[in-house]
């Protein structure tokens, strides 16, 4: 019997939601585990770094890597996995574009450390102690890894073959990706493994989305009763649907909340935020600058709104001072 294809799962800076999404394959996981040979899965199995190092290059058919990259340890791991794998799948929003942790790219590392260990309410730290790369405690030397100052996407560190979008990707898409890989019918390199359509196309509210939105005001979701049927944008709520790739089947609008864009843009779009601005802002009804400004006041945090999951990838990604 020929060997079953070898597959690796690895997580970098992740909340664990992507791993949980694999777990949410539920009964289907048994099919996956039956069809492949998992050679690395730190969350569930005990294979070590040395086990992977000992493998011949390219002997792993596919490595699924989730989480953003922030430490040297993670860099080392993903470079090694790249060497050992034929295909690397960037798994989930954090790996694809930084995800929520990349919001930290708007803060300097020093500011983060100072707040957490000194200024945060309740901290009792008169000596201003900070975790140190190397320290002595009762005569014992202890070390800690250093944080990189930037949160990076996986493809900013290694070459990536495919992308599974979402925060996290849905079990359905994960299953489809695994099946595509196993069948050997691989799409062109760089493909995002999710339908290349705007989320609006999958949304049950689509029919109530007017061609001309004629926006006079943006409202925040806590300020109004949200109509469960009507297009959210038509209700004046920022919904990233028009600038976001489909594949989740419009989960959040189904939960009566706006899409926040976790699937990233479609293939025709480079910058998700810019796409949203160009497609939606042209629908602002007022034409005078100050009236337009008044409408935009309804979006108090444009970066967190348009680039909620994408700060590693977009041009705004770093605050310098």
């Amino acid at each position: 019997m020929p060997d079953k294809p070898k597959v690796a799962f690895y997580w970098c800076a992740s909340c664990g939601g992507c791993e949980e999404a694999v777990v949410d394959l539920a009964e289907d996981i048994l099919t996956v585990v039956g069809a492949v040979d998992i050679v690395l899965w730190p969350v569930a199995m005990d294979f070590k770094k040395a086990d992977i190092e000992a493998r011949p290059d390219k002997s792993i058919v596919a490595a699924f890597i989730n989480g953003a990259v922030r430490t040297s340890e993670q860099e080392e791991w993903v470079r090694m996995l790249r060497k050992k794998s034929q295909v690397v799948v960037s798994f989930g929003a954090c790996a694809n574009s930084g995800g929520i942790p990349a919001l930290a790219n708007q803060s300097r590392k020093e500011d983060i450390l100072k707040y957490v260990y000194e200024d945060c309410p309740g901290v009792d730290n008169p000596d201003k102690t900070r975790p140190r790369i190397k320290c002595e405690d009762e005569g014992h030397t202890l070390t800690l890894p250093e944080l990189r100052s930037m949160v990076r996407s996986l493809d900013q560190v290694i070459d990536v073959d495919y992308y599974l979008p979402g925060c996290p990707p849905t079990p359905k898409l994960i299953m489809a990706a695994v099946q595509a890989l196993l069948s050997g019918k691989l799409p062109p390199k760089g493909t995002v493994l999710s339908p290349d359509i705007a989320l609006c196309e999958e949304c049950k509210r689509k029919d109530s989305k007017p061609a001309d939105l004629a926006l006079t005001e943006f409202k925040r979701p806590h300020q109004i009763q949200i109509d469960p049927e009507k297009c959210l944008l038509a209700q004046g709520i920022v919904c990233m649907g028009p600038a976001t790739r489909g594949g989740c089947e419009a989960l959040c609008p189904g939960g009566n909340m706006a899409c926040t864009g976790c699937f990233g843009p479609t293939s025709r779009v480079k910058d998700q935020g810019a796409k949203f601005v160009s497609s939606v802002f042209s629908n602002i009804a007022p034409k005078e600058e100050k009236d337009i400004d008044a409408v935009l006041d309804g979006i108090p945090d444009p970066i967190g709104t348009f680039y909620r999951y994408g700060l590693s990838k977009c041009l705004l990604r770093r605050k310098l001072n």
Partner: protein
Amino acid sequence: MDKTAQKVWNQAHQQANSGRRTVTIDPITRLEGHGKIEIFLNDQGNVDRAYLQIPELRGFEVFSQGRPAEDMPQITSRICGVCPTAHHMAAAKALDDLYGVKCHPVGRKIRELVYNAFMLEDHALHVYVLGGPDFIVGPDAPKEMRNIVGVIGKVGLDVGKRVISMRRRIREIINYAGGKVIHPVMGLPGGVAKGISASELPKFKEIAKDGLEFAKFTLQVFHDIVLRNDAYVKLITSDTFTHKTYYMGLVDKNNKVNFYDGDVRVVTPEGKEYAKFPIQKYLEHISEHVEPWSYIKFPFLKKVGWNGFVEGGSSGVYAVAPMARLNAADGMATPEAQKAYEEYFKVLGGKPVHHTLANHWARVVEMLQAAERIVELVNDPELTGKEFRTIPTKTPKIGVGVVEAPRGTLIHQYETDENGLIRRANLIVATLNNSARIAMSVDKAAKGLIKGGKVDDGLLNMVEMAFRAYDPCFGCATHTLPGEMPMIVTLRDMKGGVIREIRR
């Protein structure tokens, strides 16, 4: 169990026997986050000190600044994708407080339903897959058996599938009401975004009924396998796994355990009420200490003070999570759970229980309460009310929210400008509350088990048991940025030279 499943388990057995320890083939098995343990030996080869280090930091409190407060339930759920519902709820409750709005009664019931569903499925995961292997299979079992495969060997093949399918079904409730099961979107100040349609109820009632059966069955399993075995009871009560500390947990107005709401109650190591306060006053009671050797901070009782990693009434160290919750309350809020609670304290010699490994049992007691509460809620005619949210009208300023996460008390505090944009945030997560006691448990277990420089792989499991009982989430604690890694244990001599490094 069908053929494929059977094959999968067999395959895992094989891998386990080939010398590489397979923790499990079941994907729901996990050790949360990245922990590093350094054990220093003295000249006699005994343990001088063992350190549990948490090696990273993400900084959610800082990058939340400038974000609209109403986005916090979704942003903070990314602290942990295993426990997103806990962060989501704590955040939603902080928003109620921030906007000075009382949660709509229907919205509150929906939140509680989702929350108890989450508590039940998350506890089940730990009982069968994370903690179970050590406890149900036993600490002395060969290491290739201390995993879900071993658990199934012991409790029967059907149980594995039952856990998977029960957990999936319970999570359907969260998925429906929360929009997404991982990182829900339901929480808004004053209520929830979406109501529950009456047409869903028959299905939810079915799930609730089965969930309660499952919780009862789990208690039976625990009885048959653990409590009937004197060696296990002895292990639970052994000094190596015991610390006398303060205990903290949420209680309702009758001082019964409540996961979703209530006042925080703290009891002394003798079990006397030490403090009871609404969460808005937490800064009068909790401070955080910093050590240079870990990114995690160490909360302590402010009025007692930080006196290092020591036990007793003069040490400010306290514990949270199931054992602590049962200690901090006067009883359970539902009948079956109350029965189980009484038996728990009777067998373990009365209140409070100080034995870290008793957390496993306490967790099963809590599964019963969560399941019974789900049954109550799905049979509540108000659950499907057409209105479920109160629109806030006040100007926001400061808000605090608390829930009992499966891993213990979880606190979110936000301060905003008058537009509701975050100025300052403070998040005290469950495992953070437990960090000092967990560090002590690792140190004590290492000291009790390693003598004369002799160590074997059994050490690892015993050391791991010392912290695994807490179901810690090091990915979540201090909002670390986990490079999720196998655990590393390094043994060093007095000069700091590495004697041995063991990776799991």
